């Protein structure tokens, strides 16, 4: 597999080798960066009694952001609806909201010419059971149903932030255990992605809509948030970010087309390897989580997102409208720079990069040059596990050498972690089956059902 993006000068915001057309006239990766807005409910119960109010709130939110997008003459608008658990478990509820959103979006396209599309992201509820059932049972059934219903009710793109492997990774992150994290990502996560995205691509192709992409949110972003609270080292979070790339790549191998999910900060790698347009978030999503990659995350984005914000009132307007406005101005700046020349776009990209890169290893691994170097190594490996192994190894190598050369600052108490991670990566088995056998023999095996990931249990071997 060779990279979709061959050189640094082609690695730009707004441009993707495989652009996507979706919804009502919306194009991603064709030269213009588009704002992607996501919103959620304020603190409230969701039940029969409050359901009319839930409907009213979604109608109010979508109307607010569309109205402002039209007033600001946004170049287009991608709206993401991420369901809440109750709306996946009871898919009819999810469907109702999809319909409300789609109706408003159609209206704004017709009345105001606002190009737009609706991305629906059912919340992955399969871990409501413990251990999780990934491929059957009531939670899977309801979620599968919601995909179909969303496609029928007006979704233009389907996404998910799938959680296969999370059972194993949550503990691993707390204990800073990279080996167990990689087991969760590359063995369990990648297998679940294969199953899930095969299914999702099927649903989309029947409905003639776009299978967009997944996010290693439950892994990479959990690590990022823990690192931001100084609970785990940033170097570890940075390595986990890169190690999550092969898992997220599986979606594209199975037929997903992008744009990737906003909170998939592994996006630049996905774009470099698979050529798909990517959605990113950074300072724009400070409302959802604080970050150390606020600018650099924007460097090669095709859609620019706020991640999520509740319908709470700020002094000016509701928070989703505030987010929308900020995204539109950010996109204006990028699109204005790019309208000058490719050199200008590169210049802005590089300022976004340089303003963050040296301060945090999590930013460093998002440098376009670093991304291309590591992506190339990932692309040469045949399986998600081997890709993940090399991804982790390259990531810690890049960090270590940048730190040695004085180009990247690593805080004193993190320095011993560089050697620790190098050691752990070096000890990862060369054979996937060996790795699986080893992990199945530890208490980790009690946390998940091997069959749910297509893995034969030790007993049945």
């Amino acid at each position, binding site marked *: 597999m060779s990279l979709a993006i061959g050189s640094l000068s082609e690695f730009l915001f707004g441009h993707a080798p495989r652009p996507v057309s979706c919804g009502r006239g919306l194009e991603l990766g064709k030269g213009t960066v588009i704002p992607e807005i996501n919103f*959620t*409910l*304020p*603190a*409230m*119960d*969701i039940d029969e009694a409050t359901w009319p109010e839930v409907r009213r709130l979604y109608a109010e939110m979508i109307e607010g952001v569309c109205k402002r997008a039209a007033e600001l003459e946004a170049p287009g608008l991608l709206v993401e609806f991420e369901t*809440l*658990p*109750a709306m996946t478990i009871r898919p009819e509820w999810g469907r109702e909201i999809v319909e409300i959103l789609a109706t408003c979006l159609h209206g704004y396209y017709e009345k105001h010419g606002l190009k737009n599309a609706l991305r629906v992201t059912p919340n992955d*509820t399969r*871990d*409501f059971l*413990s251990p999780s059932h990934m491929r059957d049972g009531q939670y899977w059934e309801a979620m599968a149903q919601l995909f179909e219903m969303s496609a029928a009710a007006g979704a233009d793109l389907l996404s998910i932030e799938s959680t296969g492997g999370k059972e194993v990774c*949550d*503990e691993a*992150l*707390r*204990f*800073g*255990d990279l080996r167990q994290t990689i087991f969760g990502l590359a063995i369990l996560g990648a297998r679940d992605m294969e199953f899930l995205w095969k299914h999702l691509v099927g649903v989309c192709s029947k409905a003639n809509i776009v299978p967009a992409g997944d996010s290693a949110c439950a892994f990479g972003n*959990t690590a990022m948030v*823990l690192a931001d*609270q*100084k*609970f*785990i*080292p940033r170097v570890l979070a940075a390595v986990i970010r890169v190690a999550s790339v092969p898992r997220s790549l599986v979606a594209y191998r199975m037929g997903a087309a992008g744009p990737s999910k906003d909170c998939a900060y592994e996006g630049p790698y996905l774009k470099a390897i698979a050529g798909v347009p990517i959605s990113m978030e950074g300072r724009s999503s400070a409302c959802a989580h604080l970050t150390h990659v606020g600018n650099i995350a924007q460097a090669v984005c095709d859609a620019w997102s706020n991640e999520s914000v*509740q319908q709470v009132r700020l002094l000016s307007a509701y928070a989703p409208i505030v987010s929308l406005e900020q995204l539109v101005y950010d996109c204006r700046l990028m699109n204005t720079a790019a309208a000058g020349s490719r050199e200008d776009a590169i210049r802005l990209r590089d300022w976004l990069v340089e303003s963050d890169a040296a301060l945090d290893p999590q930013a460093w691994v998002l440098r376009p040059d670093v991304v291309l170097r590591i992506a190339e190594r990932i692309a040469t490996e045949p399986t998600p596990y081997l890709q993940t192994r090399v991804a982790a190894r390259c990531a810690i190598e890049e960090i270590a050498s940048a730190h040695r050369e004085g180009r990247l600052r690593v805080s004193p*108490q993190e320095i011993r972690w560089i050697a620790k991670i190098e050691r752990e990566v070096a000890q990862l088995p060369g054979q996937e089956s060996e790795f699986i056998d080893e992990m199945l023999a530890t208490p980790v095996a009690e946390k998940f059902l091997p069959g749910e990931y297509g893995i034969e249990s030790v007993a049945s071997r």
Partner: protein
Amino acid sequence: MTDLKKLHQAILDGNAKASAEETAHALVAGVDPMTIIEGTMIPAMDEVGRLFECQDYFVPELLLSGRAMKAAMQLLRPLLAKSGAQPVGRVVIGTVKGDLHDIGKNLVASMLEGGGFDVTDLGTDVSPDRFVAAIGEKNADIVCLSALLTVTMPAMKTTIEALERAGVRNKVRVLIGGAPVTLQYAREIGADGYGENANAAVALARELGKGTLRP
């Protein structure tokens, strides 16, 4: 005494195997169990706590040291009189109904354990009834409720109301936390405390354990 220095180091390193080995050596050499605990293990864990507070240690190091301490204690506990082994407090913890997020809750649970609490973790999506039942079974002093979604926050209130109806509200202190939760909200629903992050939650549990704090 050289051996006990090694035990000290094993706990600092979070090395459970070495910690158990060194403890076994010390016992064989005839060191009194209370001397091992009070002279070495407690000072070692205090040191770990200090390193964590000044941000030299991260959570994994804190938790691994806790594991190393536990491994040593497993050898020592049978040799101790029952009286000395009181936990700092008994905690029941869980993510409220409708919410599946558990990383924050798990972090708090393991840090509480490391801090000497007896912790019962009910997991995620825990109904008010299960909280009520667990309080009775475990004779808990503290209940920790976690929520990451704005739409599951109201379940914290429902849970506290259930504790009241079941007549156990006065027996326990209720501590709440999670991204959307605020001190304001804790007051509104009549919780006893609010932890802004895992550190704060554990510190607060300690305070509540001493029975000194009401918000």
